[in-house]
């Protein structure tokens, strides 16, 4: 228990949609009953396709969206009910790295301002010390002190993402939620940034929640992975286990759809029919049943629960229901 850094319990985030003046509101269940815990020092991955709720989960934990219900325990404290000011203070230990390095840095601020701001708003150090810290961290992430007085647009995407990471790390937080941190980068730059994240984790003892749609990257960097589909976790397992032997039919299909590494590599590809259903009106029962190759009668009516298997992983699928 003492090893648990973050515990998310029955997290729900529903977005209301207005259907016009005289109609009832409908709800998008972006995150529906998601529970998991993250251990100190590990990298916890969340994978899934667009619209599965993985980013919303991350943002809701950090309360960039207000949650609909559920609890988020960070170091034993429920941060889901904190006031704005208390939450603001708690953010010192909980940071975020954003997907789009072009949009997540204020174009009108210099790098120095961007990097010292987190320290300043949390009342840490004197002005001079803050500047020293900024100079220190910018070298750590692989840029140069002379870059401090430039503006974000003078940097390439990879360099900007380094700055975004530096801003998150400068507070020496316990947990960093990285939302697709390399998806917007060029291929040859992605591996640089992944290496940086791995190195910082070692040096600063960081815990990551790594949100991504890129199965290869997730496989490389994470210890445990949760696979999400339409707002729910369908499978949660150790990374090796999940990639070696996926159990949930969706995980199987997802992994088999990943592009091959070599033209001679053959793969028994499970090509899913159709598209992800609209989260406004998700299918009844198991939300995956409309596309599942092994769909049974029960799947159409009953929601499968996330159950723990012998090897310690959890799967939400009627195929493995112990009855």
């Amino acid at each position, binding site marked *: 228990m003492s090893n648990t850094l973050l515990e998310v319990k029955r997290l729900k985030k529903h977005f209301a949609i207005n259907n016009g003046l005289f109609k009832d509101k409908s709800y998008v269940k972006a995150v529906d009953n998601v529970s998991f815990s993250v251990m100190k020092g590990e990298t916890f991955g969340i994978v899934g396709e667009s619209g599965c709720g993985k980013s919303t989960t991350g*943002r809701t934990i*950090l309360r*960039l969206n207000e949650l609909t219900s559920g609890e988020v325990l960070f170091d034993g404290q429920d941060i889901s009910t904190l006031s*704005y000011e208390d939450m*603001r*203070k*708690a*953010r*010192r230990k909980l*940071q*975020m790295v*954003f*997907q*789009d390095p072009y*949009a*997540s*840095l*204020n*174009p*009108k601020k210099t790098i120095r301002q961007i990097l010292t*701001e*987190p320290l300043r*708003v*949390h009342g840490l150090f004197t002005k001079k010390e803050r500047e020293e810290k900024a100079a220190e961290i910018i070298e750590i992430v692989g840029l140069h002190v*002379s870059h401090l007085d*430039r503006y974000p*647009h*003078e940097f390439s995407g990879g360099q900007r993402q380094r700055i*975004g990471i530096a*801003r998150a790390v400068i*507070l020496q937080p316990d947990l960093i939620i990285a939302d697709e941190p390399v998806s917007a980068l060029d291929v040859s730059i992605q591996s640089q940034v992944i290496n940086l994240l791995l190195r910082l984790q070692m040096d600063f003892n960081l815990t990551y929640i790594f949100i991504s749609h890129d199965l290869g990257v997730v496989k490389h960097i994470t210890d445990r992975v949760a696979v999400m589909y339409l707002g729910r976790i369908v499978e949660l397992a150790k990374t090796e286990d999940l990639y070696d032997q996926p159990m949930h039919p969706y995980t199987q299909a997802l992994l088999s759809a990943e592009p091959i590494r070599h033209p001679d590599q053959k793969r028994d590809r499970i090509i899913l029919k159709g598209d992800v259903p609209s989260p406004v009106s998700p299918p009844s029962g198991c939300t995956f049943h409309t596309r599942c190759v092994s769909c049974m009668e029960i799947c159409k009516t009953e929601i499968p629960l996330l159950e723990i298997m012998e090897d310690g992983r959890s799967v939400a699928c009627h195929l493995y229901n112990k009855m």
Partner: protein
Amino acid sequence: MSQVSVEKRILYKTNERQNGKVVSLFKRLVKNPFGFLGFLVILSVCIVGLLAPIIAPFNPVETDLTKKLLAPMTEGHLLGTDQLGRDILSRIIYGTRISLLIGVTTVLFAGLIGTTVGVLAGYFRGWVDVVLMRIVDVQLSFPFILLVLIINAVLGTGLKNIMLSLIVVGWVSYARVIRSEVLAIREKEYIHSCFATGVPQWEIIVKHIMPNLFTPLIVLASLQVSTFIIAEASVSFLGFGVQPPTPAWGNMLNEGKNFILSSWWLITFPGLALVITTLGINLFGDWLRDELDPEMNQNR
């Protein structure tokens, strides 16, 4: 080697941008004929207004009934005289002051109120937004002239009251524009990242959102100045605005309308001054909008 030259070039670019922003903006202005024309008009109107006592050939309020309704170019009166024998050119020159005063102050105050309301509504959203925007809606449902007339009827006529009424009428357009602007900026990822960092709310508003409002405000204000100058003229024309004998383009038009068939110059020249000024401001404002609009200006 090449690394050094790249560094140098970037440094050079940075300097150039910071020191030369205004200069390069001006260079581009000179290249645009309409924008530059507008700029020249504004410049000359300002100079005329400032130097009115020096430039004006006659006292604008001095009446001389022996010289009433003189045609242009007679007895030293370049643009003729009005029904009380006052020099029209001098009255137009002094009228510039009133127009500029009204244009600039009302825009300033209306902008201040409108921006505050817009920022609050756009940032806090929810019920704050609903309440403030419904006030705006109510305000907008009154015909503009009617509102001005009501205010002037209640508070009495005069320069102060006309300015007050124009501010009351004018702030709503700022509130609307700024609100939608703030709504958009608030959803930018760098604002989200401020939340995630733990930046206090007031600091997010003042340091991260407000600087982005500069461009839309400048553009809106430049176009509003001309609207307000015309509004003042319209109200003065109806007899509610600036009261005689103080010279203003609006009340000159009002007085001149009675002589429109016999002495055309009474109404033509103030009208022309009005048209040229507003046209100049609009041309400049259009240019400024295009110039500052990042969509139009891809190569930042």
